[in-house]
């Protein structure tokens, strides 16, 4: 059961990574009016990046569970 759980979790993380990478791409492709908007977008992108890094860490952790 644990084997399948690990695999399922990895696929979940991958899905999230895909969604986050899309969001990241959208945020970077947009043009922003004014400094405030740009700063907010920058923060959002940083946040998404950190989320993605966390997900890669989680994937790595769940790979060990696969037997």
């Amino acid at each position, binding site marked *: 059961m644990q084997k399948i759980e690990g695999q399922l979790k990895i696929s979940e993380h*991958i899905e999230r990574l895909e969604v986050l990478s899309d969001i990241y791409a959208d945020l970077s492709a947009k043009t922003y009016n004014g400094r405030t908007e740009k700063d907010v977008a920058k923060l959002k992108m940083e946040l998404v990046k950190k989320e993605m890094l966390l997900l*890669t860490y989680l994937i790595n952790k769940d790979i060990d569970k696969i037997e």
Partner: protein
Amino acid sequence: MIKIKPLLHEMNSCLEELSEARTNIRKVSYELEMLDRKYQRGEIDYKNYTRQCREILTGKNRSQISENYSYYISSLKKRLRETNSKAFNIIYNDTSFEDIIYDKASKKKAATFNLPEITSLDIYDIEIPALHIEIKEIKKTKPIQKIEIPIPKPEPGEKLDAPHPVKLTFFERFIYSFSSKNKPWVLPQEADTVFMGGFLSKEFLDYLFYGKEKEENFGKTKVLRSILSYEQKGGVGRDFGGSKTDVLDPYLLEKEIKEIKNLISRKRPDVYKASTLGYLANISVRKITIFFIEQYPDFFKALYRDIRYANIRVLANTYINIVFFLTLVSGISAIPIFTLIYSLQGSGIGMMLVKTFFTSIFIGGLFFAGGVYYPSMKAKSRKRSINTNIPFAIDHMSSVISSGVSPATMFKLISNSREYGEISVEIDKVSNYVEFFGYDVLTSLKAVALTTPSEDFKEFIDGFVSTIETGGNLKQYLSQKSSEALLNYRLERQKYVEALSTYSDIYTGVLIAAPLFFVIALSLVSVIGGNIGGFSVSTIISFGTYGAIPVLNLLFLIFLEASQPEI
């Protein structure tokens, strides 16, 4: 722009391969199992079995297949990890958020002013034209008409009266005051300390004749004791034929009751009360005590230790001051009393003074000896209680900790149970240190270990602390200690029971059979007549029946009590 999509797809394909491999191996193992069963049932012969096995295993043996499978899985995992690392690198090194573009066109232009060029340094007089402001008359607005909105009045509903508390009659109050444990005329915290349950107090008479109850404050709420007694015991109403609604309206008081219940269940910390005697002793004999402590440090060191072990709720210094104070007071107050007594006896003045002096010293000494001996006596009794209860307390701790709670909660639960005599007191100290003083569990345990009179309990605490500090398995430690303690307890009890059977034989011989023989022999002697050792037979029989046998029985009981093991 992060380009990790291809990597994610690769990872997904890896996962698919993994699932496929797992399905394959499951299929192979299932087929093999079915084949094994068939062979075991004799449905196929050995030749067919081996042939089919070879077909399923594609010419390999089982261990090879399993090795191949694990190798394949590990290679897939490696691939997954590598791809993931690549994705991580890409994400980590991406700095595209630093170069976000923003629309320059929409940037607001700064206001520019075309100033006339200065041709010379002459000073110009600038003419400022007069301002023409047209002041328009403000038209008076019409006064706002008051609009009256009719406020709908609430329709009169059914009037519900809250039921009044039951008033008990004199007779009912009389029965209630003796039948119930709760005494409405005394506060619960004072119930144990009040002389004879407060039956001789004015408050009791007030309650009996006028129904006045002592109000108890729970925070901001004042509650009558009868309500509390109702909540705790099922109600006074039940005892006297009333119903629940007669006493409390559940709809109106539900919230309050909940609050009260919480307050009741909440444990109140015991607060040491200041002792007036201690205060007097501290201010009067402190210097004398210090002098003696300095003179005989070894003696007082043992006394200090005993006071701590005895858990006397007075500071050790104050206790010693009290002992000295009582010694002095009793010695001094004995002087006039015994002077009077000896003078009435008709002793000479010199003799009277000498006698009074020694008697007062003797009485003072008695008080001092009592004061010094009391802590060690109490410490011993606490030690016995702890040693008796330790196997059961550890067993309880073991079962609590195995349910996965933290040590602090476990100690709180044990201290709340109040089933383990002095161990509960010791554990209560731990939870008090944690809850009220904010110490961590280990420091609290170490502090308690310093003042506990039982070596066994101290050893247990030390083990507990070291298990936590070294990261050991607490559950295992407790279960091991519990089984050890229970085994010791059983062995000690078994020994004691064996010893008791010997004592019972001795008792039967010495205190039942022997007196019987003596009585028979003496009856025979009385028939013949004569004296024994100058005493008549009837005197000896009376002495034996009313003096010797009860005294021997008493001595036997004392011996039994003394020989009882600590566990």
